[in-house]
């Protein structure tokens, strides 16, 4: 046993796969301890907030200390933030269209561009081919340009509760800074938010846990059924074997995924929990395990050690458990790993089609992909809503296949180098 473990952990492929898998598993276990938020809690209005730190504006005004930093490029950045190159190009286009000489416009000089704009822009003038949306855009742009080059600070005013008049209470200068840590409320979204305004990272880690559980349950259900049927049909033989092989053939011929879709559809949305889905996946994917186990048992059942066990008066169950199962255990473990991996993939496939677990309780990797797809994250270029999920699925699958290949090389003499 010790030697076997040593052999297994001597295989580089197995170790790499195992480390990746363990890292995923540990993240799933440890992350909720530090971030105890409910994974499906909606924490933002508006969809697809991009990844980054969000600082509370109100609290940053009230922040304890303000620091003054003298930086040279602060103004340029501020202007660039409010007036993008795209906006400049649009303004240029309008000005040229309205008869301003092209040579006169210097796109880089903001002050000159703004002067020209103020001089020439007329919201009522329509260029040929200009749509209403374009016109509205120019009006919005003009409004946003107000005070762009001002060096004055922003005035903060509050309502006097007695008179109802606004009274200036504070001025925020352009050179004022606050320390992020001194702002009472700020929030880091490492992977942004999804279409419902939920933190993608928290959701993803919870979903990974649920998907792994689904994979484990599906794998264990499939492997147990496959193992029991394979052992019994291979060892007992005769009529029992014929009947079981008939059932196996039946399940081999029906495309598993179609069967899976039909079963989950007929169960109905209401009763489709994550556990139910896992069991259904397990019930439809045992057939290859049982075939392989049966073949191995047939080659084992006439060995002398089995005959000796029979002569020692052991029952069929005892012989299967003690004289056959240990000899195929390495194979069964490998099959289990593959079943878990394919269970996770099957859940993802099913959920993308909208036939996964009902959506109100737990996230799964497949459900997250489904949501990202329905809300067009891939079209809107919101990569954080689907790319990390695809990566996690690929990583789980990769690590498990790597472990399987490593085990195969340890236990299959033909593959040893």
């Amino acid at each position: 046993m010790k030697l076997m473990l040593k052999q297994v952990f001597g295989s580089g492929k197995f170790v790499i796969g195992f480390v990746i898998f363990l890292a995923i598993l540990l993240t799933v276990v440890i992350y909720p301890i530090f971030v105890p938020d409910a994974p499906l809690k909606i924490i933002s209005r508006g969809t697809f907030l991009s990844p980054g730190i969000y600082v509370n504006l109100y609290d940053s005004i009230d922040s304890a200390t303000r620091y003054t930093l003298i930086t040279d490029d602060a103004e340029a950045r501020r202007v660039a933030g409010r007036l993008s190159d795209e906006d400049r190009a649009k303004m240029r286009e309008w000005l040229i269209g309205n008869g301003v000489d092209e040579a006169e416009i210097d796109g880089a000089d903001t002050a000159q561009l703004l002067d020209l704009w103020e001089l020439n822009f007329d919201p009522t003038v329509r260029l040929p081919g200009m749509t209403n949306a374009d016109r509205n855009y120019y009006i919005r742009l003009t409004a946003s340009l107000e005070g762009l080059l001002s060096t004055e600070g922003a005035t903060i005013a509050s309502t006097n509760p007695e008179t109802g008049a606004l009274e200036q209470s504070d001025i925020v200068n352009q050179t004022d800074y606050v320390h992020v840590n001194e702002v009472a409320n700020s929030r880091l979204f490492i992977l942004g938010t999804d279409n419902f305004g939920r933190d993608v990272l928290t959701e993803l880690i919870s979903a990974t846990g649920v998907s792994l559980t689904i994979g484990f349950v599906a794998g264990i259900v499939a492997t147990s059924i496959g193992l029991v049927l394979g052992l019994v049909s291979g060892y007992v033989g005769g009529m029992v074997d014929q009947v079981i092989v008939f059932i196996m053939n039946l399940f081999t011929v029906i495309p598993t995924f179609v069967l899976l879709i039909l079963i989950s559809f007929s169960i109905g949305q209401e009763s489709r929990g994550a556990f139910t889905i896992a069991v259904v996946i397990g019930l439809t994917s045992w057939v290859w395990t049982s075939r392989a186990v049966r073949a191995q048992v047939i080659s084992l059942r006439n060995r002398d050690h089995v005959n000796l066990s029979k002569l020692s008066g052991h029952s069929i169950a005892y012989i299967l458990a003690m004289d056959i199962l240990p000899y195929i255990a390495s194979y069964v473990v490998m099959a289990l790993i593959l079943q878990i991996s394919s269970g996770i993939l099957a859940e993802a496939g099913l959920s993308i089609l909208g036939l996964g677990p009902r959506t109100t309780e737990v996230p799964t990797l497949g459900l997250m992909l489904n949501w990202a797809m329905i809300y067009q994250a891939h079209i809107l270029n919101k990569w954080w809503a689907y790319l990390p999920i695809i990566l996690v699925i690929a990583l789980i699958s990769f690590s498990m296949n790597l472990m399987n290949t490593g085990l195969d090389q340890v236990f299959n003499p033909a593959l040893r180098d």
Partner: protein
Amino acid sequence: MKSDKVILSGKGVTKIFGFGSNKTVAVDHVDFSFREGEVISIVGESGSGKTTLAKILLGLLKQTEGEIYFDGQLRDIRSHSKKKAYWQNIQAIFQDPFSSYNVFRKIDAVLLDCIRMRGGGRLPYDKKREMMREACSFVNLKFDELTNKYPFELSGGQQQRLMIARIFLLKPKILLADEPTSMIDACSRATILDMLMDLRNEVGMTPIFITHDIGLAYYVSDTVYIMEHGKFVESGSADAVILHPKKQYTQRLLSDVPKLHEEWDLSTV
């Protein structure tokens, strides 16, 4: 030692593998009657159906046709408990000691199985140890060195001796030894055979040797059955069959025995 009581006999025992054009008749209408206490050898070349017959006698394979009588009665091994009762009376030693043991079970477990088979499952552990120690010393093995070891840690000869220790504990009426010495070197061979004959005297069983080695058959047996293509072609006392063979096949088997001081006749090979 020998008595006239027939312990195991068969009438028209046949085993056919496969169907139609793939049909192989491994054992073809074989009749025999083994008397209690005599040493029997079934001799034949590879593929003559010896091992198949041995498995049928052991009840590990079901014969296609024919009846087997044990202790004068038609053998009935249709249920597990009846099989268990049958196997208390008939046991086997297999050809290859290296594949005869489950590599996941320790030597103690193998021997304890035998004690349990004899109905000693509820004995105190000290008593069981005493029995195992006795069995091991009978075959010149030291139980204290074997305990908590796995069978594959022993040499081939030791493993086969352990197999005899098993039989010592089981004390069956019939022992089927399927080429018990073919995987063992010549020195250990004589030891194993002597131990088997000692064991026979000790527990009074009927050994049936299945072998291709006609020399071994002559050395140990009272009665010899010569088997060719699933049929018994010649049978009788060892002296009659081996010293005065009637069939050409028997003569060929005899001429195939390696001799030291004569030129070896390879013409029939």
